[in-house]
């Protein structure tokens, strides 16, 4: 699914008559002090309908930020505004914010349907309404068959869908997702990631999603806020936001070495999906067409791991369906391996062994062929 501009998406949602009212969020000079941890001077703006990803290494700080937004921690300073109204003093139940935890936090004494209905019951919705809306959200998330099951009988992916349904059924103005995919295995994670995209697209809720996974951040986020934690003397640790921007900005122009190292993926490009004669290509701005396997359309980002790129001194015709000629522009030493940057353009970085480097008799400025499989191209 393509990332359309937010305003366009919102107009689409309005057309569809979705009852969700996405809101904008502003955080101003926020400090939260807890035992052993301090949230330091957070300023953050999230536009209505935006999907913001908070990215940072595993730690408690990102969760604390989400919980502060939800009203579960009282800030020691600063303000939180939703649609311009100050909600800093508001208790969580009056904020209309949905929260999804990494390990689902389903009520173990209630079955899936009762879990989903919980928020509606708390608002005193009529029985009829509850049933209808639970059924509707279950349909949206494809969990109708799970409604009678108790939480402990659900798999991780199923439980997270139920948790998502529970948060969405009350039509929150803002959806907070605390590493919602981290506890899942790879396949389920990818499935649910697609689901999150689809739901965000369909409902248009403003969402803040916390993760430590750069690829997840790139895949989902309209913008990414990079979060950093560090020791802070007697206060224990403190954390704050060090950079906010689109995934590409973060990636291309990291504001600090920390960000650069943390988002250290290489070979990230933008392009447009083109289908020609049954083949799928991504046409980069530089004109290069990269064969890929995808169901996406339109503007996409793509990422190729350096270790998936093979270098050779003659053109390849192999099962590696992408083969380009380029010129070696840079070689970085990585111990037993070398990072070779090849200008095609754009610039690709390949990881090769020192021995291959010698075999290929490569050196800066030399012409070289690089190849990678279509399946090695990660699109989002």
């Amino acid at each position, binding site marked *: 699914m393509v990332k359309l501009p937010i305003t366009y998406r919102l107009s689409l949602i309005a057309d569809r008559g979705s009852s969700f009212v996405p809101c904008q969020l502003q955080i101003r000079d926020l400090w939260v002090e807890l035992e052993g941890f301090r949230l330091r001077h957070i300023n953050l703006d999230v536009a209505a309908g935006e999907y913001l990803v908070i990215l940072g290494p595993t730690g408690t700080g990102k969760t604390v930020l989400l919980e502060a937004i*939800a009203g*579960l921690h009282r800030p020691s300073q600063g303000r939180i505004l939703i649609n311009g109204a100050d909600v800093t003093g508001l*208790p969580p139940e009056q904020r209309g914010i*949905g*929260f999804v935890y990494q390990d689902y*936090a389903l009520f173990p004494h209630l079955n899936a349907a009762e879990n989903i209905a919980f928020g509606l019951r*708390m608002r005193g919705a009529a029985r009829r309404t509850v049933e209808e809306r639970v059924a509707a959200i279950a349909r949206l998330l494809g969990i109708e068959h799970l409604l009678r099951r108790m939480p402990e009988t659900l798999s991780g992916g199923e439980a997270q869908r139920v948790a998502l349904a529970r*948060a969405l059924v009350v039509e929150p103005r803002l959806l907070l997702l605390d590493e919602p995919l981290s506890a899942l295995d790879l396949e389920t994670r990818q499935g649910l990631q697609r689901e999150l995209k689809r739901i965000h697209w369909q409902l248009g809720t403003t969402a803040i999603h916390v993760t430590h996974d750069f690829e997840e951040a790139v895949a989902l986020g309209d913008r990414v806020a990079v979060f950093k934690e560090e020791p802070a003397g007697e206060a224990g640790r403190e954390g704050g936001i060090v950079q906010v921007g689109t995934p590409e900005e973060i990636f291309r122009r990291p504001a600090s070495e920390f960000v650069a190292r943390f988002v250290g993926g290489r070979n990230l490009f933008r392009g447009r999906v083109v289908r020609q004669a049954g083949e799928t290509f991504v046409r980069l701005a530089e004109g290069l067409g990269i064969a890929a396997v995808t169901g996406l359309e339109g503007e996409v980002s793509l990422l190729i791991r350096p270790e998936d790129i093979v270098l050779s001194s003659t053109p390849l015709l192999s099962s590696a369906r992408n083969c380009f000629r380029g010129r070696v522009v840079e070689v970085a030493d990585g111990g037993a391996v070398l990072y070779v940057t090849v200008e095609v353009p754009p610039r690709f970085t390949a990881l090769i062994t020192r021995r291959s480097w010698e075999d290929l008799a490569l050196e800066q400025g030399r012409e070289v062929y690089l190849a990678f499989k279509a399946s090695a191209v990660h699109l989002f």
Partner: protein
Amino acid sequence: MKTLFANRMHISFAILALLLLLFIAWPLLRTVTASGPALLWQTILDEEVRRAIGLTFYASFIATAIAFLCGVPLAYLLARADFPGRRLVEGLVDLPIVVPHSAAGIALLMVFGRQTFLGQAFGLFGVRFVSALPGIVIAMLFVSLPFLVNAAREGFEAVDPRLERVSRTLGGSPWRTFWGVSFPLAWRSILSGAILMWARGLSEFGAVIILAYHPMVTPVLLYERFESFGLRYAQPVAALVILICLAVFIILRLIGGRKERAR
């Protein structure tokens, strides 16, 4: 390695352990079996015994109810809230276990006695503590409330606080969250703590005898019969009391399972 007689050390241990178990079991068995069913039945028919048993059950029930009302909130706060002096409060809750019960009785008398401020204040409403049901209740309450509070606290501690947070974000007020999430999830622990407290209240002697020799609860009755008429007369009552406690205890273990075991 897993069986009882796996090696000589286990056998020595088993012999030592057996001594201790015999020491517990023998007196109890002996007391229960010394009087035939006929004598036990006669004891049950004894008006005074029945009145004492009824009073004990009732007083302990009231004490448990009071502890429930105030102790469950206390347990919840201990499990959830952060406040200065928290460890002090925890210690305070455990104190009645180590204070000798006769000293506890004296201490209660110092506050609830006829001449005291509280005693006279309650007296205005016709509530008398010394030698009356309220005195029995506060004595039982004092010595046995740690059982309920600690069990409930452990119950609340076992509830993931994030479940409560989710409930709050879903629009649940603190009260609705407590009744809809925290309480039902801690209920088994609370219940088993309440039963344990009730059982412990049934068996209270030291504090009760100082506050209220009369009306007589079963342990006091037992003591009085022993003092006035000797062992022969006290023994059937003791047998009856032990059997009742055994029944309660078995129910408790069936509910609580191994984890909520009494200490």
